[in-house]
Every structure is written in structure tokens, then in C-alpha cells.
């Protein structure tokens, strides 16, 4: 029975469209939950967005979190957070220096104090972000997300019809909202790297939508009179094996990084895994239903751009 692809039935007859109303309710609930979490819990913003300092330390013996916390309180790191990180002798300190104190100087003072209090302590990583830079990183990060979505809308509009582009963009927004909700709910750190992860999620999700639309457009040309809902069902069934295989591949590929990537890669990779799942889902149950509701131009299809590239 090898290769396994032969095990998949030649044709699927799954009524995707029938489930769309339930999917819409499901999505609405998830988005509402994301919104609630986003506005009540908020995102766990990293220092690159809010400014401040982060020090990763390693002590010779098991780390004494209580003593570390006391030292941090004494030396004036404002609302300092101390938490264990990785091995039992590792810890992460996050703090902000008081107004008017140069943050770099402040971090240095705390380092000196820690070296005095905990002999043998080593600093594995020190990061200080000034308030000016953090503001800019935040702005440019979200600007990047906006510009990316807009350019992709233009591209899809150029390659398909406008409603395809809007369907894709709504789908991508859906994915971004759910991903933000997930990040807020899990309280994973949201840093500049998370923006990169979100952009990758957007890229992957768009990718899915383009492939969905390609098959739909092809079938629209093939079956000029069939109802749109039937064509959507047919296209999705034809595409199902590919969706399953690619989704599995992507998640398998990232699995190594989920388990062995360590605390730096984990938030990034888990965001990607989540993005792969919601991106696949939203292609079928957000982008396509929007097109179904809106309708497409049929017949001689004047609005269609030519079918280029493949023609050879």
C-alpha cells in the first residue's frame, strides 16, 4: 500500500458549504474570545516594545528566586519581574529603570549589584531598550503588518477579482486576530520576533488562499452554469488531499523547533504552527464564504485577468 497517497480516496464528497454557517458562528465566538482576552489581559509586550531591560543570569548553584527578587527590589529596578528560565540555575530578570536615569547606566548598576550579592553569577544575555527606540519598533512593526496585508490585497486584486482579494484579506485579518488572541491568552511574550512570526503567518495564510482561489477560478471557467456553492464544494474536495498533506508537512517540519528550539524559538514557532492551522481553516471557512455571499462575475468573465504563466 505504499506510497500512502494511494490510500486517499480518489474523490472526496464533503459538503464544505453546508458547514459554513456553523463555522461562521465558531469563528465569531473565537474572535470575540480573542477580543475579550486582548482587551482584558492584553499582550505580554516584550522590552523591545515598551522599553526596559532584561538580564539572563546563571548562578553556580540552583537559583534563589526569592533572594534575587529582594536584591532587585533593593537596587531600584522598578516593577521588576524575576522568573526562572530553563535550567534550575538560570533566571531571567526584567525591569525598568526610573525616569530620568539613563537605562543603560541603570542596567549596569544592577549588574554590578548582582555580581556583589551573588558571587559567581554570570550574565548570559543583557538587553536594554530605550523608550525612543521601543516606540519606533512598535510603530514600524504594526506598520509592516498593515503594509504587507495591503500589498497582498493589491496583488490578489490584480491576479483575481476584487472580491477574491477582499475575501483573502478578511481571512487574513481573522487569522491575525485569532493569533493575537492566542498570544494574549497564553501570555507568551510579544516581541519584535512575534511581528516576524505574524508576517510569516500572513504569508502562509495568503499562500493558502491563493491556492484555494486558483482552483476555484479554474472550475468557474470549466463549469460556467453550475451554482457557485457547488463549484466551491467541488474545488475544495479536489484540493483536500493537498491541504492535508501540506498542512501535515508544515506542522511536522516545525515540530522539532517546538520541542527543541528553547525559550527563544518557542513563541515564534508556536505562533507559526497556530498560523498554519488557522490559515488553512480560514481559507475554507472565511475567504470562500465571503466570495459565496458576494458572488463572482461569471460568463465571459471580462473582469478576469488572463491566465498567464502556465500558457506555454
Amino acid at each position, binding site marked *: 500500500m505504499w506510497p500512502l497517497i494511494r490510500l486517499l480516496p480518489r474523490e472526496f464528497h464533503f459538503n464544505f458549504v453546508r458547514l459554513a454557517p456553523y463555522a461562521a458562528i465558531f469563528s465569531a465566538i473565537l474572535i470575540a474570545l480573542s477580543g475579550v482576552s486582548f482587551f482584558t489581559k492584553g499582550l505580554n509586550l516584550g522590552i523591545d516594545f515598551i522599553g526596559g531591560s532584561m538580564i539572563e543570569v546563571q548562578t553556580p548553584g540552583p537559583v534563589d528566586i526569592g533572594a534575587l527578587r529582594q536584591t532587585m527590589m533593593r537596587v531600584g529596578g522598578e516593577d521588576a519581574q524575576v522568573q526562572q528560565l530553563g535550567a534550575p540555575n538560570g533566571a531571567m530578570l526584567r525591569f525598568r529603570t526610573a525616569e530620568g536615569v539613563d537605562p543603560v547606566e541603570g542596567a549596569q548598576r544592577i549588574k554590578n549589584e548582582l555580581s556583589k550579592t551573588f558571587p559567581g553569577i554570570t550574565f548570559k544575555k543583557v538587553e536594554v531598550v530605550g523608550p525612543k527606540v521601543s516606540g519606533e519598533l512598535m510603530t*514600524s512593526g504594526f506598520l509592516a503588518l498593515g503594509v*504587507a496585508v495591503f500589498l497582498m490585497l493589491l496583488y490578489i486584486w490584480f491576479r483575481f477579482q476584487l472580491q477574491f482579494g477582499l475575501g483573502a484579506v478578511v481571512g487574513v485579518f481573522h487569522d491575525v486576530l485569532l493569533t493575537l488572541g492566542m498570544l494574549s491568552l497564553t501570555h507568551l511574550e510579544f516581541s519584535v520576533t512575534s511581528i516576524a512570526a505574524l508576517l*510569516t503567518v500572513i504569508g502562509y495564510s495568503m499562500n493558502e488562499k*491563493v491556492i484555494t482561489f486558483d482552483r476555484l477560478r479554474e472550475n468557474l471557467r470549466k463549469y460556467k452554469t453550475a451554482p457557485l456553492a457547488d463549484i466551491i464544494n467541488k474545488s475544495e474536495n479536489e484540493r483536500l488531499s493537498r491541504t492535508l498533506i*501540506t498542512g501535515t508537512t508544515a506542522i*511536522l517540519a516545525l515540530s522539532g523547533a517546538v520541542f527543541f528550539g528553547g525559550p*527563544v*524559538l518557542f513563541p515564534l514557532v508556536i505562533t507559526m504552527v497556530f498560523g498554519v492551522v488557522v490559515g488553512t481553516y480560514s481559507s475554507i471557512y472565511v475567504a470562500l464564504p465571503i466570495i459565496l455571499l458576494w458572488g463572482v462575475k461569471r460568463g465571459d468573465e471580462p473582469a478576469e485577468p488572463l491566465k498567464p504563466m502556465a500558457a506555454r
Partner: protein
Amino acid sequence: MINLSRWKVIAVVFAAIFGVVFTLPNMLPANVRDSLPGFMPKQTLNLGLDLQGGSHLLLEVDTAALKQEKLSNLLEDVRTQLREANIPFAELRLVNDQVSVLINDPAQANTAVNKLRSTVAAATAGAPGGSGITVAAEGGGRIRLSLSQDAMNAEAGRAVDQSIEILRRRIDELGTKEPTIVRQGVNRIVVQAPGESDPQRLRDVIGQTAKLTFQMVDETVTPEDMAAGRVPPGSQVYPADDGFSQSYVLKKRALVTGEMLTDAQQQFDQQSGQPVVSFRFNGQGARRFADATSQNLGKRFAIVLDGKVISAPVIQSAITGGNGQISGSFTPQSANDLAILLRAGALPAPLKVEQQSTVGAELGADAVRAGIISLAIGGVAIIVFIILAYGLFGVFSAIALIVNVLLILGIMSLTQATLTFPGIAGLILTLAVAVDANVLIYERIRDEAHAGRSPISALEHGYSLALVSIMDANITSAISALIMFQFGSGPIRGFAWTLLIGVITSVFTAVVITQVLIGLWFRATRPKALPIV
């Protein structure tokens, strides 16, 4: 498929060789790499600071301070020129970023304006766009001098360029290996120093302006006047760091400045054995220093570093040789650092550290290990899965995937693009998307075969029809990578670059390499049915 064009086969063979040759140096230990023959590439991946450890500093040139300094220099120039021309004046001060002065006799106002235009405003002429200083008479004897924004911007730009040059000299002297010092945006500088350099020392050397001046102590001012802030115009209170006094009142005009130094060295004083910094003036500096010391025997002068008096000795004898030494409360290292700073020259404006990040080499090594394990597990999982799913065609995909990884690593080694830790995650996802291209093709081939096409026709149609989707999908990925590259900084750029290279190599390997392999296999075996149908 059957008549594989020759260029495709050549391209595939070339790509595979290219990937192996340029990735190979990364696999070899350093000593083997060094003994490779000259024509072999030796460049290895340029690991980001998060992977190899090191310090990253984002500095901002303080343009506001630069402007203030320029304005106060202008103010002093106005004072000197008006005195020289014997024009009595009052109310010389800075008002709203302008120098304002009141000429006592309004009849002399015109003479004063002409005098200032021909001297002060012409002083910096030759700079692009003129001096940028406008002299305007406002009636009633009031004259205002202002600096144009363009001139300020040009000045700030020069200051950044100059700062980069000076930083490079300073950091080189510290013995830091391969530092990168580049401009970012209008007034920022990024300094990256890989390896286990001491970040604190690096920052000390970068953070100091090192503006050195020699100024006379104003001995007409009593300590009481100083405490009350009664200081004559042309003099100013300076804080001191010499261990004798809290502060001194000094004449604002500098006798000699640090720019006139030709050399500075850390030495030990022959009498006291204390660390000192000895220096030598250039011709102009030596002359001015000789004049000043011979005219002011028995008086005190001060050595001022970045607005702080570090030493205020009494002039015992005229110093005519152009040599001198600075003694203060130095340790050998701080004296050595000061000598480095003086040799490299002063920064034109203070630099402020806006962002600092230091990663220990050990943490970097951990990250490399985690990255390699993640990549290996991801890669093996994809290969096993794709071979299980598609059999022989899966093997072809796996070969394409391996060439893809080699190509990406080879191109990154060749272009010395930075591989960051997030970049490794980007690489892993790229592999998954590359396989997606194959999945699209194979599924298409199956569809076409199920629809009744012959194997050869199904292959042809599968490739050509899937190509549209593949291109569309990869163009959207490329858009997001380009945006990240444009807006991102540091690690994100590395991530974006990895994605972008990956998009390009993936389309090539997933489409062309598998096509060539399947074509060759088809030609050799002439199968009646395809293994995936």
C-alpha cells in the same frame, strides 16, 4: 517532459555543485578549511550575534547638543568680533535658538551687521549651501543671528559620518575583532562587536565624547562669588574631577583643544610612579601652548575633558616643546583608555546609547545547537513523510529539498547574509512551503491521470497547471519577506533574508529539479502507470 531541455539539466547540475561547494566550508573544521586550495570558497555562514555571542549597540548622535554647541560658539564669535571692532553692545544672549545682541548706539548697527556678515557668517563658508548663518538687523540696534535648518541637517550628517570614523578608530584600538559600524537612518549608528568582548569597556570607549580643552582658570573670582553664581561674562563654572576641588571658574575660551594633539600615550610619572597620559601637540598647538604658558607664568590652567576639569596645575615654566602630560586620578587602564580616546579624536557630538544587547558566547552556542537539532528533526520528518506519501516521487522531492537546503546555506555563505536564530525558524518553514510546491504538482498530476490522461500527458499538464498556483503563492510570500526586510531591524532582517532566498531557491528546486529527475526516470523506465496514481 521527455525532451528535457539541456539548460534545465545543466542548471540542476550546476545548482547542486554550487550548493555543495559553498556549503562545504561550514562543515569543515577551521584547520581543514584553511588548508583548502585557493580556488575553493572558505566563507562560512555569517552568524548573527544571537548565535555567536557579542554586543550590539544602537547609538544616536545628540543633534540637539550639537545645535546648542554651534549656537554658543556663534555667540562667542559675535562677542569677539564686536569687541575687536570696538562696537559697544549689551544683552548678548541666546533667544529661541537665535543669537540676539543689542548694539548700544543704533547708528552703529549697520557697521555691526556688515562686520558680522563678513566674519561670523562667512567663517564656515565653503560648506555646502553657504554658512547657513543669517544676520538680520531688527531696528533699535537689535541684531539677530540664526542658523538655517539645512545647515544644521548638513552639520548633523557630517557629525554622524565623522562619529563613525572616530568610533572605528577607537574600537580598532581596543582590539575588537571584526566590528561592524554602520549608519542607520539619519542620526543613528549601529555598532556590532562579535565574540566575548567586554561590553562595558566597549561602551565606555564609545560613550565618551572625549572633547579635550586647555583653559585658563579665572582667578579674579572669589569662592564666595562662585558660590553665589556671580561669574563674569566669558567665564563659566566647571565641575571638577581632580580630587582637589568641587568646581573651578574657567575662561570659556580654550587655549588649545584636543584636535591639536598628534599623539597620546599612557605612561607612568617618573617621580610619583602614578599612571599619566603624555601627549604631543602639533605645530599650531605647540605654538599656542608655548605662548599661553609663557604669558601666564605662576597662574593656573585647567585640563577639561567633556566639560569636567580633570587636572588644574600651576604653570611653573613656559612649556615650549609641545609635549606635556596629564596627571589625575587614573588607573593604568583608565589612563590607557583616555590615551586611546585622545588619539582617535573627539566625537563631534555626544552619542546616546538607545539600545544595547549583549549575548554571551555560551548562550549563542546553545542557540546554534537548538537550531541545528530543530532543523534536523524538521528536515528528517518532512523527508520521511513525503517519501511515505509519494514513494519514488517523494524521493525526488527529498533530493530537491536537500539541494534546496544546500543552496540556501551556500547563497547565505557566499553573500555573507546574517543567519539569526529566528532565521532558522524561517528556514524550517521555507522547507515546508518548498514541499508544498511538490505536493501541488503531484496532486495535479494525480488529478490529470484520474481524468484519463496518459502518464506522459498527466506529467506535462501537472507541471504546467500547478506552476500558476506555485508562482502566485510564492509571490505573496516574497511580498511579506520584502516588507519584513524593509521595516525590520537586526534579527528580523536576517529572518526576512532567509525567507526571501528560500522562496527563490524553493521554486527552482521544487519545480525544476523534480522535473529533471522525473524526466530522467521516465526516459529510463517508460512506465505504463505513475507510482502516485
